[in-house]
């Protein structure tokens, strides 16, 4: 068919079709608009002065753009000390992502490819542990950290690394075990026939073949820890030197008065890392979150 015949054939019916589908596009468009508007508003406000933010809505900028600048960003990083909180978030999140992922990888391999009595039963306990509310562990762990091998580690990175590692493990093992368990049996059987040890089979076969699942898990755990507020409130607590961004930001949102002009900029600084992760690795991110539907 040539372009001319398409155009000829389409013009009346195409228009009718477009009209018939207009409600569909309108409904979707309206939803997308509602979903985007809140973030756009904060983004615009992050470039406005305190006076402007409190005296007129951000949408007035769209018709009369003026007074937009980067002052809030430079202020928030220096005065509110959010720069160091940003680093704290990185210090907390990176080890709390790498360690549980590694631990989960060989535990998952044992669950998937080694036979031992009680394997099914033990794994069911693990499935139950995925949804256990963290609240049921705070008080005893807090007391344990008061005297952890002779030292009070409440408020330190060590405390929150340990907590996030343990909290992240059930889901991490679950995800990787399900993936590793679905790898073809023949691969491992032929490796064992060739004399490979389980260690070799794990490092040379299972790990490289599980990269997609590991990527999803790493992203899931990274975003989960980066966005966490509750665990930080409990185990970092009032120790302001070690607080992550979420904690600093929550107290900024809570305090009326002083911090208003910084809020929007601070929010964007906190959002930028998970948003970049989401935009650049969307496929893995969505897969990780979807698999996490058991976690809640």
């Amino acid at each position, binding site marked *: 068919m040539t372009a001319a015949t398409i155009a000829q054939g389409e013009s009346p019916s195409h228009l009718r079709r477009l009209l018939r*589908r207009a409600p569909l596009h309108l409904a*979707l468009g309206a939803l*997308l608009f509602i*979903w985007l508007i*809140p973030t756009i*508003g*904060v983004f615009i406000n992050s470039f406005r002065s305190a006076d402007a933010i409190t*005296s007129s*809505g*951000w949408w007035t900028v769209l018709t009369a753009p003026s007074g937009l600048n980067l002052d809030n960003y430079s202020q928030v990083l220096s005065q509110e000390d959010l720069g160091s909180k940003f680093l704290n978030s990185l210090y907390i999140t990176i*080890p709390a992502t*790498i360690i549980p992922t*590694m*631990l*989960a990888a060989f*535990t998952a391999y*044992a*669950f998937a490819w*080694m036979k*031992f009595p009680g394997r099914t039963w033990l794994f*069911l306990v693990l*499935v*139950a*542990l995925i*949804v*256990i*509310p963290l609240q*049921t*562990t705070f*008080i*005893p*762990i807090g007391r*344990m950290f008061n005297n952890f091998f002779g030292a009070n580690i409440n408020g330190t*990175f060590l405390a929150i*690394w340990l907590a996030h590692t*343990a909290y992240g*493990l*059930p889901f991490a093992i679950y995800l990787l075990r399900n993936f590793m368990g679905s790898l073809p049996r023949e691969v491992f059987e032929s490796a064992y026939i060739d004399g490979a*040890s*389980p*260690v070799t089979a794990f490092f040379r076969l299972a790990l490289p073949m599980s990269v997609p699942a590991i990527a999803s898990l790493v992203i899931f755990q990274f975003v989960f820890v980066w*966005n966490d*507020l*509750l665990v930080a*409130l*409990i185990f970092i607590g009032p120790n302001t030197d070690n607080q992550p961004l*979420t904690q600093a*930001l*929550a107290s900024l*949102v809570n305090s009326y008065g002083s911090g208003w002009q910084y*809020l*929007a900029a601070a*929010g964007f600084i*906190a*959002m930028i890392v998970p*948003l970049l992760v989401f935009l650049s690795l969307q496929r893995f*991110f969505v897969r990780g979150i979807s698999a996490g*539907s058991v*976690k*809640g």
Partner: protein
Amino acid sequence: MDSRIITALEVVLVVPAVLVGYILATERLISLAQGKWRERIRPWLWLTPALVLLTAFLIVPTIQTVWYSFHNKDGTQWRGLDNYAWFLNGPGLASLVNNVLWVVFLTLGTILVGLAVAVLADRVRYESFAKSILFMPMAISGVCAALIWKFMYWYQVPGVPQTGVVNEVLTKAGQNPIPFLIDSDFKIDTFALIFIMIWMWTGFGTVILSASLKSISPELLEAARVDGATEWQVFRKITFPLLAPTIAVVSTTMIITGLKAFDLVYTLTANGSYDTQVIANEMYNQYFNFGQYGRGAAIAVVLLIAIIPVMLFNIRRFQFQEGIR
């Protein structure tokens, strides 16, 4: 250089090295054992680190929390069910009512809107773009969502230019602006918070439901249409029943999310002021602000009991999946 950078670097390098070293060392150890014992010991050595952590940080603490819940504020005296009685007669009932609202409306909202978008987006060319936009709030923290919506719900007294979008719309429509985050009439503030959570989680519902929707065979739907079924009948009689298991899965996630709601309440209504308190915030309050271990533990146990049905559902689902494998 900041000593914390060095500590963090050490942890990132040393701990993984230790873990790999551990696995290699176990293989050395196993090689000392006799033939069939090797296969028996190995799995347990591989499992030990994770089992130790899970036992020390999840299983034992949960048992201890149940024990604490029957004791006084610092765990020194047996108090029977006193803490539970206190909870139900004190802040408990209001928190439970709010949590029920959270669970019901969050689940309904995410599934209805999520399903609507999944069905609608299936028919347009910008489907993946639409889903990305909806999914984006999943990437940001509860605190950031709270901050974003604090601007949306911003209230100025009538007569002054409104600075929040929602109140601007209300004012333009001739209504009085509403102080959404402190107005407890008809639980407006709680619903305002729940709506933020729906905003955050709808993309999740959409993505999961959309994947399930695409697995329905188009021939089946076409056959029904050829037989004269209307679009609505096709949806109600074919699509919806086939989606039901997926809806159940999304529901369990949303139920847990609703029960565990904390960040938004902590950040936007000062940890549950103005009648917005929920279980998780009350637990934090008792434990952290008042040092009431017994009461805090009792609240945590209530939360655990509420989650047990979901736990059992997940176990059943897992057994089913393993069964058909």
